[in-house]
């Protein structure tokens, strides 16, 4: 088995005047749950459609499970399952019929797993698809995909229509999948979901990947927020590289600090005597917002340096 399940480089896809993918690079390792993070319109769905051979890339290369997704589409599809972001089903078929049909087209599904998933997602398979809500249609596609015996799951915003309870059920199921050794590419714009589920994350913006790495690596790029009550005013905090948004009010301090400088900053606080300390760990959200709050000039993909000092 290859070490990389998906490797994409320099992918370009244009629709008329719009450049949906603009030199996208993406690497998903075998066996990992990879978060594909970005808001609507950033190019997540287009990427997945190229990987499925539904769209043909204008430039760049894409390899999926060691094959060319356009030329070897049918062979590759035996080894993967896909859940689209907006699931539409055949109105006259029941949910159970759709699950079985899609499963059989993929080469059969495990009846025990099917029953277990229906149970966990609380889905009634006898209802006609025309009566399902968006969330229930999504569950149909999820059950069909998860009950299939495949190596790779491509999930496009799979929880967009699910309620919080079902989201929790979904997280459990994906965690199981990871233990089972399957590779998952999970596109999402919900940061907490990606934080909870994914080993590695790629952030897409305007058709390009602007950040990619493990959560720990990405957290390293983000800042921790610190609020402290000290015995005496701290020394040398103002001059310290990597400290941002510093508010000094006598013995009370509040600031943000880059991950790399956290130890040094805490050492200086400690030197001034700590009465109380709250530290808020960096969230993906901050990192995300930093990429998305930049203006057009920041579109080159590098996080802009903090200017508030």
């Amino acid at each position, binding site marked *: 088995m290859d070490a990389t399940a998906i490797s994409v480089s320099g992918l370009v896809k244009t629709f008329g005047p719009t450049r949906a993918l603009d030199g996208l690079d993406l690497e998903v390792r075998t066996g990992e749950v990879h978060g594909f993070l970005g808001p609507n319109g950033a190019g997540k769905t287009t990427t997945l459609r190229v990987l499925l051979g*539904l769209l043909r890339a204008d430039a760049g290369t894409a390899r999926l499970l060691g094959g060319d997704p356009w030329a070897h589409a049918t062979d590759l599809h035996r080894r993967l399952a896909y859940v689209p972001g907006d699931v539409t089903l055949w109105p006259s078929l*029941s949910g159970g019929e759709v699950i079985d049909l899609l499963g059989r087209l993929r080469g059969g599904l495990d009846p025990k797993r099917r029953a277990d998933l229906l149970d966990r997602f609380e889905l009634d398979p006898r209802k006609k698809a*025309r009566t399902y809500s968006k969330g229930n249609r999504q569950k149909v596609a999820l059950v069909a995909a998860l009950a299939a015996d495949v190596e790779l799951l491509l999930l496009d915003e799979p929880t967009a229509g699910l309620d919080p309870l079902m989201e929790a059920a979904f997280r459990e199921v994906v965690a199981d999948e990871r233990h089972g050794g399957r590779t998952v590419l999970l596109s999402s714009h919900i940061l907490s979901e990606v934080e909870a589920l994914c080993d590695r994350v790629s952030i897409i913006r305007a058709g390009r990947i602007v950040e990619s790495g493990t959560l720990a690596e990405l957290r390293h790029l983000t800042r921790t927020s610190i609020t402290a009550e000290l015995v005496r005013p701290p020394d040398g905090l103002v001059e310290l590289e990597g400290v941002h948004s510093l508010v000094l009010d006598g013995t009370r301090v509040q600031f943000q600090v880059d991950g790399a400088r956290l130890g040094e900053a805490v050492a200086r606080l400690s030197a001034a005597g700590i009465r109380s300390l709250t530290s808020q760990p960096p969230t993906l959200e901050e990192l995300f917002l930093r990429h998305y709050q930049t203006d057009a000039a920041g579109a080159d993909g590098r996080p802009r340096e903090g200017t508030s000092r």
Partner: protein
Amino acid sequence: MTTLAGTGGLVRLILRRDRWLLPLWVLVLALLPAQTAAAIDQFYDTPAKLGDLYGTIVTTPGLRAMLGPVFGATLGAITVWRAGLYFTMVGLASLLTVIRHTRADEEAGRRELLGSTVVGRHAPLAAALLVTFGANLVLGALLAAGMVGVGLPIAGSLAYGLSMAAVGWTFAAVAAVAAQVTEGAGGARGIAVGTLGVAFALRAAGDTGGSGSGIGWLSWLSPIGWAQQTRAYADERWWVFALPAALVVLLTAAAFALQARRDVGAGVLPARLGPAEAAPSLRSPLALAWRLHRVALVSWTAGLALLGALIGSVATSVGDMARESTQLKDVLERLGGEKGLSDAYIASAMVIFALAAAGYAIQATLRLRAEEESGRAELVLATPASRRRWATSHLLFGLLGPAVALLAAGAAEGLTYGLVGGDLGHQLPRVLAGALVQLPAVLVLSGIAMALFGLLPRFSPLSWAALAVAAFLVLFGPLLRLSQGILDLAPFSHIPKVPGAAVSATPLAWLLVIAAVLAAAGLVGFRRRDLVSTA
């Protein structure tokens, strides 16, 4: 009445939401007939020419099936005939308007938003009906004024305007009932449009025979038929208006009664449950296509077989009738009825089968596009099912479906024609051949739809335009004395008039080759292009 509280406000809301759409269809349908009258007046400027046209219509079942009966050789009566499709259109516009402001709102949850304000339970339905009824009255009045404007008699113009409004009212009321029955707007629309389709089919079937024939009574089962039977400009029969009036009262009362018994959001028909597991056979793109196409296949086949049986059963009497009128006989013989008048009637009815089968062919083939646009194709194509397998599974129904339907129509027609005439063994093969020779022309339309789908998917609906042009050329081309070169553009123009004329294989083979090339080009094109969904 508190259940109607807020109706006035809702009427204003509908008028605001439809401020472009409503005037558009009202004006277009109100003003086009006067245009038609002016055009006919220019073309057929003497009573003799009008008489000729009248004779042609009376002897051509295809023309009557398409547009309706003609009751006189005057400009007014012929205009009402020529504008016959507008009756169906006003019905369609009216029923869509009612569903849009009742069940569609309910499904989208807008009704709930209103229900929490001071709006009575019956107010939304009442408002939708008031607006649609009012729009039809305006349409009728404008239509009558326009017809008087081009110099036609006042009484006839009034009857004509009123008959258009009557069709609009009737199908608005049909839609009001349909909107109570299902939970989804799509289902309600399907029921209402289906009712309109049945009304059209009944009228078309009845009118192929004409009033004196054994199947003329079928037209009297259709609200569209009633509108035409009021005989505007041909000694109007005002009492006929009592029929739509009674039906509208009945249906409207039924709609309100049904509404009073159900919850908001629910339908009268409970949503039925399906199987929890798929049948073992549902395991391939072809099996899925069969599930998606079988209702249409059975409906089209049964519909065409029924029409065939009806036409076959009256063909003998139509021949006898025309034989008695020397004027009609002349016209019919000029039209190329070679062997017998009945044969000519049978042969000319084949055009109707061909056009209907072509409509089915396009509908079935374009199912591909509907599947693609909705995103359902994506679900299948992300599995190991190849694009070619998926596309051919639907195309198969676009090619074989019309063949089955034509076969059934020809067999049923030959059977009844032969049984009535007492020479089944002789007639059945002749009539069956007459239906089957239409197939190559029909398949060209499947080919056009497939080629557009594969190569220019966004332009797929142009297949319908191709059918409209072909139908116009084959039905009205000879009437307008268009040159043979133009008539030849329609695939149906190359089909021999069987029974009667000799069959030559060459044009049929060419049509088959063209259909095959178009379909193959579509398949190849589809394998090379992006999947385009609107989702």
